[in-house]
C-alpha cells in the first residue's frame, strides 16, 4: 500500500507546484525579487522575501491557470500591503485575461489568519480588493479554494472563502470569521472557550464545514487526492449556483434557528439537510417585528435625516434599515445597520453585523439589482456605515457568519459591476469584517472627519492579545505605520477616501450638514458614472494613494510585466 504524501505538510511554493501540471510552474515576483513588506522591519519584525505569498502561473489539465498560495508559517498567513496586493493583483490580471477572451483559471490555497494586524488597514483594504476581484472572476471561471490547514482561514479571509465557487477542504482546515481567542476576548469565556480544542474543531473544522455545505469536498490530506479534486472542478467549469448568492436559502435557514436555545454542530447538520416549510418562517418573522424598539445611533440618525423618514418601516430583520428616496431628481437606495436591543441573536444587539444582518443587507442590495434589471440607468446605493464590529458569538460561527458576510460582499460587488453606483458614507466606526460586509465594496467612500469615525481591523484589546503586545506598544507602532492607527485622519493617508468632510458633528448633524453631505453623495454618484470604472481600481489612482499605497502599486505593475 502506498503511503500518503501530505499536502498539509508542504510549504506554499510546493503546494502551488503540486497543483499545477508537472513542469509548468513559473513563479511571479519570486524570492529573489525581494518584494517584502516595508512595514515589518520598522516594527522589529523579520520580513520574508516573498511576504508569504506565492504567485505561480502554469497549466492545470492543460488549461492556462494562476495559483495563489499563502504561506501559513510566515506571520500566520496574515494579509499585509504586499501580500494582499500580490493576491489581488494576480486575480485582477486573471480577470483582464478572461475579459479579453483568454481563459485563465484560478486556484487559491488559503492558509491565513486574516488581516496581518501589524499592517492592519492595508490588510483590510487588500481583502476588500481581493473579494471584488473574485466576484468579477467567477463570471468567467470557477474560482477554486483549497483550505488544507494547519491554519485554515480566519477573519476577512474566511469571508473571501465564502465567495469561492468551489472549496476543497481537509479535516485540518478551519473556516471561521472570528477566531476562538478573539471571541473569548470580546465576549467572554462563557461564550466561547478558546482552550476547548475538541469543541473548536467540531464547530469550525473542515469536516463540519463540508457536512453543512459551506465547503464542497472533504479531501484526505494527500497530494494526489487534493490535486485530483481541483482538476475535477477545473474541468467542470463554473458552477450554476454560488453559495454567497443564495440569500433566500441561508436567510430561511437562519430564521429557523431559535437563538435562545443551545445548538450544536450535529443539530446544524440535521437542520440544514432538510427543506423548510415557509409557514414556520413566517411565524418567526412576525414575532421579530413585534419586538422592535427604537434606539438612536449615528447610523440611524444619518439614515433618518438623509432619507427624511423619521420612523422607517422595517422588514423582518429590524437592525437593517433600507429605503428608496429621491436624492436630487433621482431615486437612490439607502441601507444602514443599526442597533436593535431585542435582536433575536444576543451578540448582535449593539449594531454589530451578525448572521441575519449580512444576509439581509445582501437581500436589499439584490432586490435593487433585480428591480433595475434591464434598465439603462441603475439605482445608486448608499451604505450609511456605523458598524462597531461583526457579532462575536459561538452560534454565529457555528452557523457560518463568514458566509453571511460574504453574501453581502457578493451583493454589493455584483451591484457595482452591474452599474449601480455604490457610495459609502462613514459616520461612525467602520471596523473589520463589519466594514468589509457593509461599505468596503463601494465605488467611492466619503467619511466625516470626526473622532467617532474609525476604520480598523480589530479592537485594540484583541489586537494586543493576538499579536502578543501591550496596548502601549500598539500605539507606539501606529506612530511608525499609519495603517495601524484607528483614527480617520491616519486612514485617509491610504488614499481610499473620495472625501474627508470636516466641520460636521457625526453624532448631531445640523440641517445644513445634511444638505452638504447630500451634495457630496450626488457628486460621488456622478463621478462614478462618468468614470465608467466598475471595479475598485480607482482606489489606487488618487494622489494620496501614490504614496500611501506605493508598495501595492509597485506589486501590481511588476505582476503585469511578468504575467505572460
Amino acid at each position, binding site marked *: 500500500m502506498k503511503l500518503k504524501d501530505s499536502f498539509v505538510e508542504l510549504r506554499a511554493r510546493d503546494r502551488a507546484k503540486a497543483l499545477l501540471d508537472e513542469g509548468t510552474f513559473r513563479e511571479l515576483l519570486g524570492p*529573489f525579487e525581494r518584494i517584502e513588506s516595508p512595514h515589518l*522591519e520598522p516594527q522589529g*519584525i*523579520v*520580513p520574508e*522575501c516573498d511576504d508569504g505569498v506565492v504567485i505561480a502561473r502554469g497549466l492545470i489539465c492543460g488549461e492556462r491557470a494562476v495559483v495563489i498560495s499563502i*504561506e501559513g*508559517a510566515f506571520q500566520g498567513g496574515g494579509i499585509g500591503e504586499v501580500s494582499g496586493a500580490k493576491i489581488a493583483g494576480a486575480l485582477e490580471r486573471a480577470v483582464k485575461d478572461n475579459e479579453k477572451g483568454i481563459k485563465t483559471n484560478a486556484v487559491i490555497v488559503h492558509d491565513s489568519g486574516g488581516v496581518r494586524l501589524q499592517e492592519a488597514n492595508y490588510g483590510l483594504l487588500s481583502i476588500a480588493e481581493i473579494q471584488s476581484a473574485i466576484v468579477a472572476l467567477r463570471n468567467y471561471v470557477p474560482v477554486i479554494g483549497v483550505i488544507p490547514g494547519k491554519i485554515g482561514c480566519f477573519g476577512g479571509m474566511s469571508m473571501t472563502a465564502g465567495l469561492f465557487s468551489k472549496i476543497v477542504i481537509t479535516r485540518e482546515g478551519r473556516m471561521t470569521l472570528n477566531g476562538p481567542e478573539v471571541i473569548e476576548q470580546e465576549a467572554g469565556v462563557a461564550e466561547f472557550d478558546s482552550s476547548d480544542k475538541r469543541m473548536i474543531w467540531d464547530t469550525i473544522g473542515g469536516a463540519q464545514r463540508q457536512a453543512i455545505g459551506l465547503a464542497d469536498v472533504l479531501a484526505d490530506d494527500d497530494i494526489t487526492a487534493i490535486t485530483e479534486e481541483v482538476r475535477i472542478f477545473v474541468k467542470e467549469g463554473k458552477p450554476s449556483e454560488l453559495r454567497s448568492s443564495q440569500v433566500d436559502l441561508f436567510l430561511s435557514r437562519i430564521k429557523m434557528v431559535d437563538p435562545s436555545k443551545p445548538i450544536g454542530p450535529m443539530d446544524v447538520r440535521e437542520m440544514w439537510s432538510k427543506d423548510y416549510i415557509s409557514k414556520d418562517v413566517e411565524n418567526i418573522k412576525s414575532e421579530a417585528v413585534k419586538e422592535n424598539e427604537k434606539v438612536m445611533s449615528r447610523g440611524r440618525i444619518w439614515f433618518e435625516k438623509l432619507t427624511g423618514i423619521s420612523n422607517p418601516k422595517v422588514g423582518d430583520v429590524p437592525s437593517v434599515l433600507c429605503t428608496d428616496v429621491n436624492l436630487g431628481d433621482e431615486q437612490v437606495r439607502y441601507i444602514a445597520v443599526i442597533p436593535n436591543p431585542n435582536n433575536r441573536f444576543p451578540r448582535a444587539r449593539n449594531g454589530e453585523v451578525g448572521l441575519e444582518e449580512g444576509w439581509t443587507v445582501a437581500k436589499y442590495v439584490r432586490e435593487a439589482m433585480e428591480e433595475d434589471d434591464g434598465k439603462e440607468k441603475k439605482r445608486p446605493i448608499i451604505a450609511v456605515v456605523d458598524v462597531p464590529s461583526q457579532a462575536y458569538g459561538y452560534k454565529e460561527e457555528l452557523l457560518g457568519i463568514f458566509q453571511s458576510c460574504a453574501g453581502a460582499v457578493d451583493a454589493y460587488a455584483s451591484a457595482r459591476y452591474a452599474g449601480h453606483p455604490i457610495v459609502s458614507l462613514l459616520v461612525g466606526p467602520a471596523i473589520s469584517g463589519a466594514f468589509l460586509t457593509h461599505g468596503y465594496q463601494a465605488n467611492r467612500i466619503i467619511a466625516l472627519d470626526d473622532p467617532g469615525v474609525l476604520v480598523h481591523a480589530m479592537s485594540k484589546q484583541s489586537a494586543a492579545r493576538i499579536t502578543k503586545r501591550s496596548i502601549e506598544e500598539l500605539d507606539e507602532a501606529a506612530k511608525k505605520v499609519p495603517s495601524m492607527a484607528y483614527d480617520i485622519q491616519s486612514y485617509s493617508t491610504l488614499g481610499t477616501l473620495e472625501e474627508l468632510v470636516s466641520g460636521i458633528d457625526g453624532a448631531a448633524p445640523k440641517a445644513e450638514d445634511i444638505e452638504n453631505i447630500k451634495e457630496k453623495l450626488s457628486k460621488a454618484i456622478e463621478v462614478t458614472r462618468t468614470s465608467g470604472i466598475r471595479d475598485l481600481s480607482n482606489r489606487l489612482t488618487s494622489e494620496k494613494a501614490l504614496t500611501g499605497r506605493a508598495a501595492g502599486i509597485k506589486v501590481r505593475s511588476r505582476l503585469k510585466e511578468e504575467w505572460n
Partner: protein
Amino acid sequence: MEKLTFEYAATKSVPKRAYVGVVGSGDLEILLEPIEEKKAYVVVRTRFDGFEQIWRDMLDRFFEDNDIAVKIEINDFGATPGMVTMRLLQALEVSIDEA
C-alpha cells in the same frame, strides 16, 4: 530584531542561486546567490537580539568547510544553531545539485 553582517574570503564559485526555508517559528529562510568577487557576504536579520557571537561561530565554521564566493541573506525567526547549519547546507546542496 537585529541586523548582522559578516564577510569572508572565498575562492570557489557555485553554479546557481538557491532559496530554502521559511520565516516561521524556529525556522529561517536563506537566499544564496553566486557572486563574481572572491568574497562571501552574509546579511542576517534575526528575531532575537544579542546572539552575534553564536552567528559568527556558526558562519565561521560553515565557510571554513565550504569555500564559496556567494552573497547570502538570512531571515531568521528563532532557528536553533542546528537548524541554521542544516538550512545552510541545504541551500548549498540546492545550488550545486538541482538541474
